[in-house]
């Protein structure tokens, strides 16, 4: 009746690898080293961005303007995914820690977190779900988040409304100022408020939320502060130590350009034990004997379980490295520069309404615009059919708009195409 889990882990992992030490080393990835990016020349930035664009297997037409929905990956990320897979299939060894821990360190450094604060998830939704399901909550406990939250951010809480009688309090984002959003959250605080959540950048209009100020407010009130960073990581530099949140959800397959079904969750180490794991299995803890007391690992690794696709994890780390080579500030600045060009062009088109914030510091590389007559579906369909532009319709909260995401692989010429197409739409639709 004794089940020695420690030995189990050792025997399938370290023991096997130790005995393998005498055999041939793993083959190198079968792909050639990726081409280097040229040095950035401020006098000729477009040449640099064309070189970046050449890294993407993304087809040229239609023009892709939806990194906020699903981001394409650079070829070297795919090479890393398949190279890892090929190596691993040859030996069929789990190699779990050997491959997952370096990637964890890479991502943690990228986010300004400790490796023990990061676990790999399949998407931001899973990260949001781990928080919503894992916090101790009872009937009447309240959670505050913005009405523009993505389903991946809101559904986990609505599920708790159903399961545990949690009460959701929504606020409409104030597009005019950071203080306005702090005030709207403050107005909803009550003695029953247990959680405040915001999107770091909203998926509807690309608005930057005042995360650090909201962290202070939430903590002064004793609430857990969770951030859905699906639209922020890879778009703007993120430093979790500076943001001050208790937990933060990342998507790998949007702005970061990682493989599909990748993401991460940050949980501040000091508050780890407040999030009870939902999914649990190998790698999450130790159980010397069965029956016995399961001891969870003292890090966010406890939220991972079972066999994972380590090629995807390695691909995500590669996506991080690619962004760091380009330069994270440079990525954010380029997206804003393109968005500024777009905004300037749209400003003169009669009837076209800009829904994204205008105030400095609140807007990013995502621009959401509304047509005076066409709804979201009609407007986006027109742009795709007649101008071969792939934008995202924004039908949430009856916004009836179209969102244009501009990222490292987009160009000024593409922005001009969007402007011309919207001008045509204003007349033809």
């Amino acid at each position, binding site marked *: 009746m004794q089940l020695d889990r420690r030995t189990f882990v050792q*025997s399938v992992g370290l023991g*096997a690898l130790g005995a393998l030490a005498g055999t041939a080393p793993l083959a190198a990835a079968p792909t050639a080293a990726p081409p280097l990016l040229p040095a950035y020349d401020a006098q000729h930035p477009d040449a640099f961005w064309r070189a970046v664009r050449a890294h993407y297997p993304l087809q040229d037409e239609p023009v892709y303007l939806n990194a906020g929905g699903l981001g394409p990956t650079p070829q070297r990320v795919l090479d890393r995914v398949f190279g890892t897979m090929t190596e691993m299939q040859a030996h069929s*060894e789990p190699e779990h820690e050997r491959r997952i821990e370096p990637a964890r360190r890479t991502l943690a450094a990228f986010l300004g977190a400790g490796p023990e604060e990061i676990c790999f998830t399949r998407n931001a*939704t899973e990260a949001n779900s781990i928080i919503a*399901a894992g916090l101790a909550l009872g009937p009447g406990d309240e959670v505050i988040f913005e009405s523009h939250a993505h389903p991946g951010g809101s559904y986990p809480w*609505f*599920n708790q409304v159903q399961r545990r009688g949690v009460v959701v309090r929504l606020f409409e984002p104030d597009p005019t100022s950071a203080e306005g959003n702090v005030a709207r959250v403050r107005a909803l605080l009550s003695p029953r408020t247990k959680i405040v959540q915001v999107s770091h950048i909203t998926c509807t209009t690309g608005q930057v939320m005042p995360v650090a100020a909201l962290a202070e407010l939430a903590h002064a009130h004793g609430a857990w502060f969770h951030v859905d960073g699906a639209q922020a990581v890879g778009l703007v530099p993120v430093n979790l130590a500076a943001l001050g949140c208790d937990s933060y959800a990342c998507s790998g397959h949007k702005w970061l350009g990682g493989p*599909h079904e990748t993401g991460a969750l940050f949980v501040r180490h000091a508050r780890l034990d407040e999030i009870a794991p939902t999914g649990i299995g190998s790698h999450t803890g130790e159980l010397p004997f069965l029956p016995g007391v399961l001891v969870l690992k003292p890090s966010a690794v406890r939220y991972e379980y079972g066999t994972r696709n380590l090629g995807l994890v390695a691909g995500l780390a590669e996506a991080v490295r690619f962004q760091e080579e380009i330069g994270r500030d440079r990525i954010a600045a380029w997206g804003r520069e393109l968005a500024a060009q777009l905004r300037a062009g749209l400003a003169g088109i009669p009837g076209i309404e800009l829904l994204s914030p205008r105030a400095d510091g609140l807007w990013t590389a995502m621009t959401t615009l509304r047509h005076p007559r066409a709804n979201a579906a009609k407007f986006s369909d027109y742009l795709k059919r007649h101008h071969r532009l792939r934008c995202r319709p924004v039908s949430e909260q009856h916004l009836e708009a179209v969102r244009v995401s501009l990222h490292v692989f987009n160009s000024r010429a593409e922005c001009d195409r969007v402007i011309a197409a919207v001008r045509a739409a204003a007349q033809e639709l």
Partner: protein
Amino acid sequence: MNVDRKTFLRGLGAGALGLIAARSLGSMEADGYQSAVTPAWTGDNPEEFWRQVRAQFPMTPERTYFNTGGLGPAPLRVLDMLTVASRQLQERVETGHDFFAQARVIAADYLGAKPAEVCFTRNTTEGTCIVAGGLELQAADEVIFESHAHPGGSFPWLNRERADGIVVKTFEPDPVNPQRNLERIAALITPRTRVVQVSHITSPTGLIMPVPAIAQLARAHNLWFHVDGAQSAGMIPVNVAALGCDSFATSGHKWIGGPHETGVLWIRLDRMAQVTPRHVGAYSSDDINLKNPGLFIYSPGAHRYEYGTRNAASVLALAEAMRFQTEIGRDRIAARGRALAQRVRAGLEKIDGVELLTPADPAYSASILTFRSIKLAYGKIFERLLGDHHLRTRPVSEVDLDAIRISAHLFNSPEECDHLVAAVGEVLRKA
């Protein structure tokens, strides 16, 4: 030039899934799809057939792999599907979620289920976590499972013990007369019992549980009956309708030969409402009104347990692995694994000091064979088989079994089995 859904389907999905005879589509081949042909069975020369099967697995020739029960290698055509589908989805920047419906039909057929009862998971553990986390259980409610359960089978319940105070009761599998496992479970049932779980085939010794009989017992006591099928699906044909359980979780990356981080969970449709999703997101609900929260209407069918952006290429490749097995013949695969395991058994029986832990009765064992020796510690046997003889087995430390597990699958050969037997003989002789 407009890449609409139909063009995309022609380029990847329907052809790739073989739902229409379009495998030779140029776009697939241009992308390096190798369109490997499944070897045709010849009764005259079965060994040649199995050699062709083996040639489809890109495994190193430097060692012999007997650990499918731990992590199963995938055939080339599965890896090609993964690679090509990933690349095509990346070029078009599509999630490929539309292909889940087709893959779900294939997975459901493979398990003898309805498509609406199947969801795609990352591994068996997730499937068992969805069931263990989703059932309404109160403090002191009891769950019964075998002491040989894999961590992926036991931890999800121990997590409920930790969080909600449920009580875990375990029974030791009877290796001599596995039918007695039914009695051992029956002896643990009390008025507080809510759930029975067994491994369809146990991980440490490859014992086949009498699942249909346990299902009857569970039904008679109105218990939820969950089966951990990590070691069965892909090793032997599985028909969940015939098994009679309420839920069945399996991995794609063991015996089925799918990509890493794939799995399937089946939940009986008429009892699905009892398993509340713990994790939800886009696709978990078709209808929710942010203005009137409070009622979260789950999507009909098991895809309610899926959420957010997924890796459709992995799911397509898992379906491809299932098709590969179906084309070879699942009875044929099971018979091959069993014959190889029996060949090892016959060889090991002749070696002094070898004790076989897997039941001899073919009704209660299949392609796994577990043994130990009083002459040498299992860790040493494992290391010498690997280091001196390039044979990858799996050490079994669970429950102080201190043994070695052999998994024999469709890519293994009689020669490899003979090599293994000879190596065990030599290792023990030198001990």
